[in-house]
C-alpha cells in the first residue's frame, strides 16, 4: 500500500482515527525533504540560513529547559510545544545551510564551537523566572513573525518554503507571549514588578536584532534587511506593553555581536551541555 492509498484509507475511518497523536504534516516542507531534494544554496545564502537556524536552535535549547519546571501543567506543555516548533525551524534552516558545505544538521549543531555560532544574544539569555522567559519570547517571536512573513516572499524558494511553514507557528508563539505579558503585567503587584524587571534585563539585546550586515545587503531580494522590521516591531511591542500596563525601560544597549561569533558568557555553557554526547561518541548514529 503506497502512501496515498494509506492516507485514503485513514481518511475513510474519519473521526475514529482523528486522535491527538496522529501527525498530519500536510504539504509542509520537512528537513528530510530539504536534505534530499533541496537545491544547493550559495555560500552567502547558506550563511544567512545559518544565522536564522542558530537563533532557533539556541532558543529551542533554552525553552526545553522548562520541561517539567513550568508554573502549571498546561504551561509546561505550551512551552514544550513552542520549543518543538522552534527546533523544527532550526532543523530546516541548518539542513539547508549545510547543503552548501556538505554538512548535516547534526554536524552544524554539534560540531561547531562557540565562535562559529551566529545566533543573537537575546536567545542565549537565561530563562530566569517565568516572566523573563515570556518577555524574551515576546521580543523574539514578534521579531521572527515579521521576519518570516517577509521571507515567505524571498527569491530563494527553499527559504520561502521554510518560512511559510514557520510563520504560522511563530504567529502562535507571539500570541502566547502577548497573552502572558498582558496577564502578568496586569496581574498582581508582584507579577507586574517581575515583568518590569524582565524588560530591564532583556532590553539591552533588542538593537542587535535589527543590525544590517554586509551579508544582508548582498542578498538583495533573498534576505530581509533587519532594520526594515524595526518600525513595525516597535509599534507592536508598544501596543502590547501599553495593554499590559508596562513601559519600555530606559536601559542602554549591549555591545552584542552574536552574528560575528562573539557571544555573552552564556552560550558556552549551553553548547557544552548540548554537544557533550555527540562529542563523546563521534560518528555515532541515533
Amino acid at each position: 500500500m503506497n502512501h496515498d492509498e494509506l492516507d485514503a484509507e485513514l481518511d475513510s475511518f474519519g473521526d475514529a482515527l482523528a486522535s491527538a497523536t496522529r501527525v498530519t504534516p500536510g504539504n509542509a516542507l520537512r528537513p528530510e525533504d530539504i536534505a534530499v531534494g533541496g537545491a544547493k544554496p550559495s555560500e552567502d545564502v547558506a550563511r544567512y540560513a545559518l544565522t536564522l537556524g542558530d537563533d532557533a536552535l539556541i532558543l529551542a535549547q533554552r525553552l526545553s529547559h522548562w520541561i517539567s519546571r513550568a508554573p502549571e501543567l498546561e504551561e509546561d506543555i505550551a512551552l514544550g510545544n513552542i520549543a518543538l516548533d522552534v527546533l523544527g525551524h532550526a532543523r530546516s534552516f541548518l539542513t539547508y545551510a549545510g547543503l552548501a558545505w556538505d554538512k548535516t544538521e547534526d554536524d552544524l549543531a554539534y560540531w561547531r564551537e562557540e565562535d562559529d555560532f551566529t545566533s543573537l544574544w537575546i536567545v542565549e539569555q537565561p530563562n530566569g523566572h517565568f516572566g523573563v522567559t515570556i518577555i524574551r519570547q515576546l521580543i523574539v517571536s514578534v521579531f521572527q513573525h515579521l521576519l518570516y512573513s517577509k521571507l515567505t516572499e524571498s527569491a530563494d524558494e527553499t527559504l520561502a518554503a521554510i518560512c511559510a511553514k514557520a510563520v504560522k507557528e511563530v504567529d502562535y508563539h507571539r500570541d502566547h507571549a502577548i497573552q502572558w505579558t498582558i496577564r502578568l503585567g496586569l496581574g498582581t503587584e508582584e507579577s507586574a514588578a517581575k515583568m518590569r524587571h524582565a524588560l530591564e534585563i532583556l532590553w539591552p539585546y533588542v538593537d542587535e536584532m535589527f543590525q544590517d550586515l554586509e551579508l544582508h545587503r548582498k542578498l538583495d531580494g533573498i534576505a530581509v534587511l533587519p532594520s526594515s522590521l524595526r518600525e513595525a516591531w516597535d509599534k507592536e511591542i508598544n501596543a502590547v506593553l501599553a495593554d499590559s500596563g508596562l513601559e519600555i525601560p530606559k536601559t542602554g544597549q549591549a555591545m552584542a555581536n552574536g552574528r560575528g561569533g562573539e557571544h555573552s558568557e552564556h552560550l558556552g555553557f549551553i553548547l557544552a551541555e548540548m554537544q557533550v554526547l555527540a562529542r563523546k561518541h563521534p560518528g555515532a548514529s541515533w
Partner: protein
Amino acid sequence: MSQQNNWPLWEVFVRSSRGLSHVHAGSLHAPDAQMAVRNARDLYTRRNEGVSLWVVKSEDIISSDPDEKDAFFESPQGKDYRHATYYKASEGVKHL
C-alpha cells in the same frame, strides 16, 4: 503551591477537521477562557488545522443527577407506541 486554587477547571469540546460535531475531549486548568482555548489547542488538537474548540467553565455545566436515573431516562421503556416503528403502514399508502 496553592496556586491551583486560582485556576478554575474548564471542560474542552473539540470538533476535528473531519468531524460533524463537538465531542467532549477532556478538561484542563486555565486562568481564564482565552488561555483555556490556547491550552486546549496544545493539549487536545496538536494544532491540526480546521478544528473548532469550545471551552466551558466546569461550574457552568449542569448535569443530570445519577441518582435520579430511573425517573429521568427510563420513561420510554415499554412504550413502543412512542416510536414510529410501532405503527404498521396501512395498505395502499404510498411513499411512507
